[in-house]
């Protein structure tokens, strides 16, 4: 097309400025995390692995993310098949319904769970009436990392459903039909045809779930304040408290970013590699 060179000339400085804008803040955080008393040092990072607060927060975050990714995949996968199979208007309706929780603020989600399952929550009170449970005991579960898993699933299952519904639609069903006609049983078809066919999408979906769980803040904050030590909350306390330890927060932020980015990048490599199955 004509004038392409002109467009490039216009765009290059813009791109440079914005690439800088996007990467600079992060680079700075990295720099600060390595800079200690006028020299470079890995001490901030080493501390993280020495002090149990940091070790535990990283472990909790990983555990939380892995659990939500696993559960979200396990629950979202069959549901997505259901949505895909419903077809026509039903499918459009279900997809629209599924997309709704994605637009909720994480804070609202956390809040809704308090209203539902908190100490004086709606369901808690019903269960007390019906079964005489102890509200404090019951809802204390909600304020642990296991409770966070439940709340996170609320907005992660829809993500999985949306990812997988698209994958089901793009699936080549002739493969399954061919396998059936060649005498394969339903389990063989599932194991040798359908799962290999969907593997990239399933991996994409669960990586996404993992990365989102690692970084989520609003829901956890609304539910537990800073009681459950997950990485984003620990970072927050280091910045907000009077005894602010910026350098530690820097290091934590870098680690959080590395984990989430790493998962997504690793997935991208797999997904876009030419040898995908």
């Amino acid at each position, binding site marked *: 097309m004509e004038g392409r060179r002109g467009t490039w000339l216009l765009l290059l400085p813009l791109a440079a400025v914005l690439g800088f804008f996007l990467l600079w803040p992060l680079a700075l955080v990295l720099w600060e995390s390595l800079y200690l008393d006028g020299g470079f040092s890995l001490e901030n990072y080493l501390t993280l692995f020495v002090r149990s607060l940091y070790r535990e927060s990283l472990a909790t975050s990983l555990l939380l993310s892995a659990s939500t990714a696993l559960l979200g995949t396990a629950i979202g996968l069959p549901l997505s098949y259901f949505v895909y199979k419903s077809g026509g208007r039903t499918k459009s309706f279900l997809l629209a319904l599924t997309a709704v929780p994605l637009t909720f603020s994480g804070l609202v989600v956390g809040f809704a769970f308090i209203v539902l399952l908190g100490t004086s929550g709606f369901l808690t009170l019903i269960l007390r009436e019906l079964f005489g449970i102890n509200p404090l005991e019951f809802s204390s579960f909600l304020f642990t990392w296991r409770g966070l898993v439940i709340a996170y699933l609320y907005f992660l299952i829809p993500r999985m459903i949306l990812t997988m519904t698209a994958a089901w639609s793009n699936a*080549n069903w*002739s*493969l399954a*039909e*061919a*396998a*059936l*006609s*060649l*005498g*394969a*049983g339903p389990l*063989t078809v599932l194991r*040798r*045809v359908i799962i*290999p*066919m969907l593997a990239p999408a399933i991996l994409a979906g669960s990586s996404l779930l993992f990365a989102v769980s690692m970084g989520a803040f609003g829901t956890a904050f609304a539910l537990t304040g800073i009681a459950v030590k997950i990485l984003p909350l620990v970072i927050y306390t280091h910045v907000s408290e009077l005894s602010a330890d910026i350098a530690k927060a820097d290091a934590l932020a870098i680690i959080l970013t590395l984990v989430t980015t790493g998962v997504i990048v690793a997935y991208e490599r797999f997904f876009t590699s030419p040898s995908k*199955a």
Partner: protein
Amino acid sequence: MAGVELRSVSKRYGKFYAVRNVSLKVEKGEFVSLVGPSGCGKTTTLRLIAGFIAPDGGEVLLDDVSMASVGVRNRQVGIVFQNYALFPNLTAFENVAFGLRTRKVPEEELRSRVEELLAMVGLSGRAAAWPRELSGGQQQRVALARALAIRPKVLLLDEPLSALDAKVRNSLRFEIRRIQRESGITTIYVTHDQEEALSISDRVALMNSGEMEQIGPPGEIYLHPANRFVADFVGVNNLLEGEYLGEGRFRWREHLLSVEDVPLEAGPAALMIRPERLVLAPSEEGADNRLTGTVTGRVFLGPLLRLAVDVEGEQFLVDLLNTETAAPSLDDRVSLTFSSSDARPVGNTGKIPG
């Protein structure tokens, strides 16, 4: 003994009949094409035979046994899809071996059978190739070998060549027929391409709106179409709107023509004359069935030379073999004649099941 038999089979989706009351008997070893425009029900018919869907009425029989309670995996049918449908995570060899492995064929026998099949489709050297490394034509050959590996009772091909380009399509077409002939397997071939169907089938079944319009050998379908839909679908035709007067007489404008005597009620009808049945004659002689016009077009179709001749404002197509005998040029006056047996009146309806 019938390899495949459909007895008044119907399939509805809501109120829409995808297939309506279709009967078809395919002999063992016969090659039958199901052909028709898109949405005519040909693929649905194939899927009914394969067992992917169940009929709402009627019965499907393979080798004279009712398939009413037999699922896909036990019907022993080989299927070739338009999109090849090779397992992308298996090599060509393992694709072909798939059906043998589900049948727990011993490793040695399996190996020799797969190699024999790959040789048959001309891909001996590519056993270790992944599907993505093969061209479309090669992938479809592997798919064919895979379908044949299980020694199916019937081979079902669903537009197997539609995704390929013209040259590959033409050569693979005849190779499929050769392999079918050699293995002697009953075959049902679905296509929307009338030329393809006519060129390789023992019989052609022409479908429209879920119903059978005509079943018969290619020559019969081509030369004696049951109705205007068939005449129109099977290819280039001169169709003259006029009036059938009965007893082999047809009026087109001022001309009284002597035509094939067909069991058609007198009244408005169309007269079908194949382009290759029109003969160019010296312009002067007087005779029956003679129309005079001007050459307005001259098209080179490889082995054929197709002329367009304008007769009283109506365009006639005339096919000549493209040899160097003097063919008329543009604007030449020519006379066209035809024998009465080459001019067939057709009505708008009427079915001739085979």
